[in-house]
């Protein structure tokens, strides 16, 4: 099938590459652009490991067709500054075990925090958990992940 020119921004940089319409954004990122920080656990949109931000919204890159990303702005884990509060918090609270869900988890959490700078409301914890509900983790039991999101938002740590 014919190739087409895909023109998009990835982590703030303009990228142009010739690819085919049946490639997913996941494959473009990992295989064409060498950005292996975005992981895959199922390739069917059932686990969240491949989460990236597309135009500021969290999506499963395994379900985004290359042409659908045309002209879009993609943020992968490689594009999140290492000093970002979420990265620091995930490392400090012990929310990273095997690390495989971590890139997708951080991006889902980032999308949430970008929309919800700290606001005191009792539903905040529940909303944070819902924001990452689409990212499965087999190692941590989510407790420290929620803790990391709280810390990154500037909320007081719950740990005794």
């Amino acid at each position: 099938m014919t190739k087409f020119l895909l023109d998009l921004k990835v982590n703030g940089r303009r990228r142009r590459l010739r690819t085919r319409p049946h490639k997913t954004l996941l494959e473009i990122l990992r295989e064409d652009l060498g950005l292996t920080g975005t992981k895959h656990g199922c390739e069917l949109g059932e686990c969240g490991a491949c989460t990236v931000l597309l135009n500021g919204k969290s999506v499963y890159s395994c379900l985004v067709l290359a042409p659908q990303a045309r002209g879009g702005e993609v943020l992968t884990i490689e594009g999140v500054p290492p000093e970002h509060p979420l990265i620091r918090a995930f490392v400090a609270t012990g929310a990273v075990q095997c690390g495989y869900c971590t890139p997708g988890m951080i991006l889902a959490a980032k999308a949430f925090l970008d929309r919800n700078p700290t606001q005191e409301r009792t539903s905040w914890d529940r909303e944070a958990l819902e924001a990452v509900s689409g990212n499965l983790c087999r190692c941590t039991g989510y407790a420290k992940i929620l803790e990391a999101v709280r810390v990154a938002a500037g909320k007081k740590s719950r740990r005794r």
Partner: protein
Amino acid sequence: MDAFSKAVGRALYADDLRLPGMLYGKILRSPHPHARILSLDTRQAESLPGVRAVVTGRGLPVPYGILPVSQDETALAMEKVRYVGEPVAAVAADTEETAGRALQLIRAEYDPLPPVLSLEEAIRGKGEPVHAKGNLHKAVSLKFGDANPPEEPEYTREDAFFYEGNTHLPLEEHSALALWKKGRLVLYSSTQTPFHLRKILAKVFGLPEDAVRVIAPKVGGGFGGKLDPFAHDLCASKLARDAGRPVKITLTREEVFYCHRGRHPAWMNIRTSWKKTGELLEMRFRSCLDGGAYGSFGVVCTYYQGGLQPTTYRIPSYTVESARYFTNKPPCGPKRGHGTPQPRFALEAHLDKVAEELGLGPVELRLKNLAPPDSTTVNRLRVTSSGLRECVEKAAEASGFRDKFRKLPYGRGIGFALGSYLCGAAVPIYWNEDPHSRVRIRLDAKGGITVFSGATDIGQGSDTVVVWAVAEILGVPPEKIRLVAADTDRTPFDLGTYSSRVTYMAGNAAREAAENLLEKVYRRTGGRRMPFEKAARIAVEKEGALESWGSYKPPLKPANFKGSGVGPSPAYSFCACAAQVQCDPRTGRVRVERITFAHDIGRAIHRPSVEGQIEGAVHMALGEAFLEEQTFHPSGLHRGPGILDYKFLSSLEMPEVKLILIESKDPGGPFGAKEVGQGPLLPVIPAVANAIYDALGIRMDKTPFTPENILLALERKSCGRIPRVGPEGFPDIPFPEPTHIPASLPGETVPC
């Protein structure tokens, strides 16, 4: 330790690796659960443009298995296929799509045989057995302690339980990348045991072990599912050799379900006798495992069915009968807890029923019968440090158990259970006298410290433990230490990540290596007191780089009976758990409100890692309790080989977990530390079952505790029938006469 590199996406897992000229491999799998292979024609596949190599069973005929006693697998099926998904052929091609098309061109002809798909069918033995020797893989029959109970029993009770099979589901799909360099095989694999894998690759390829190098990159979860050597490891290696180019095979999620090696379905029966005042006199534990098509770690799992009950309770007279049967399903093997979660579920739920009939509280009954610290169990296991009593008391207190038990309104309930696990098997898979872990530290000419350890971090934090141990002894910040791990060329021997051995064994080896380095360095400073970094600079100025070694071998010899190799450990962790639930009697859904968990960690080396392991184990346990089941259709097909179908808890179902760490300071553990990777899974499932009984008055004697089964039990209750869901009795299995191992003979020294 590597949390930062993982959090910024720089950590490399096997599928992230790529090499110039790399080919993509794919595996053709059997569509039949049981069939003879009549023919396999790969000619069309071989001539497809872009295909560089094809291999079938004949190409890798040397049998292997993770256990010396179960060398019953070949990389690709030969003559017979024994489960749907069993690897039959493999191809390597320029692109993954071409490899996929090549698989479709392979003509495979089968002669289907009637499949054996359940324990009942395996035991009945109709039709051709799964293996030539028959469906019965292993039968264990042991009697420990007194031939008769020490006193006349005043009360006896017998219960049956069933624990459904389930799987590890690590988030990273298995992946292996192989290349050959001047006659040497180099394999990058998402594995928990690079050294075992090296041994098996050497065996299958007929090479000396030093002609094989296995490297574990970052591993995205294992839980026991990446311990066995797999077809993709062997086929990638073979295809790479034949094609003369590197070959990578990454499995799809569905294929991971066919690798399996997960929790054995277990049908169990437990009978105990007691004094009316609650002293346990005698226990008979029977278990029957559905092993799937091959041995894997199954023999060890069979022994573990009866192995750890005595580490938590004094059992004067103890009989164990356990068996494993082959069936035409993906092989079962080691999953977190390794053959102990099923019996722990049965034991702790049974104790609850006993307590109720004897009129004793569940906590009280347990406290009366706890195995004490510094003792030898009836099955000859040496227990040293034990914070079990404190765990029980603290968990009961912190959860408010005694105030809530039988006092919460209908639908809400609280349940209790405890557990114990090894800190590494004292006996290695291959019996020898070598150390189980070795660690090397190199102090280079500039005073930089590099630690070389063969232990594999699969997310449980073993890298952190090893580095921390060295940092603590040397008195330097951990950030200043470089770690090289899990590479059979560069790092010294380590048995691998399983049976919760790494903190204890690699941690001890690291500690010893650091102590040796300290001694070497300070010898060169004339014994003057100064900070390590200064002393190190002086030492290397004089002599250039320095090296030190440390090792660990458990100071135990197993007792002298068959099966004694399973169970002994230099130490055991202990834990206790209270689960509080809210049940909806109209929908059958259960919400776990809170888990209160006390764990005897010995000494917490890195607290966030310890907590993370407990929280993760609780998460996995709740998955096994409510959602996870690996079940099969009558056609032999896996009912749901995908992450949407095979469910585990999302962030929304996880309860609050309240943690209490008890530090019993084990004398043999590094800095007193013990394990935490597997033990915490054990008591959660029975605690939840006991809580459901407290809430609704129904016994869930079979996992998972689905809404359908909860409603079924409630229906039985309202009809005046026994309010439970679970099996009855136990199948008729030809156990051999039990080997009797008395507690001790006069003049015999207890092993230590």
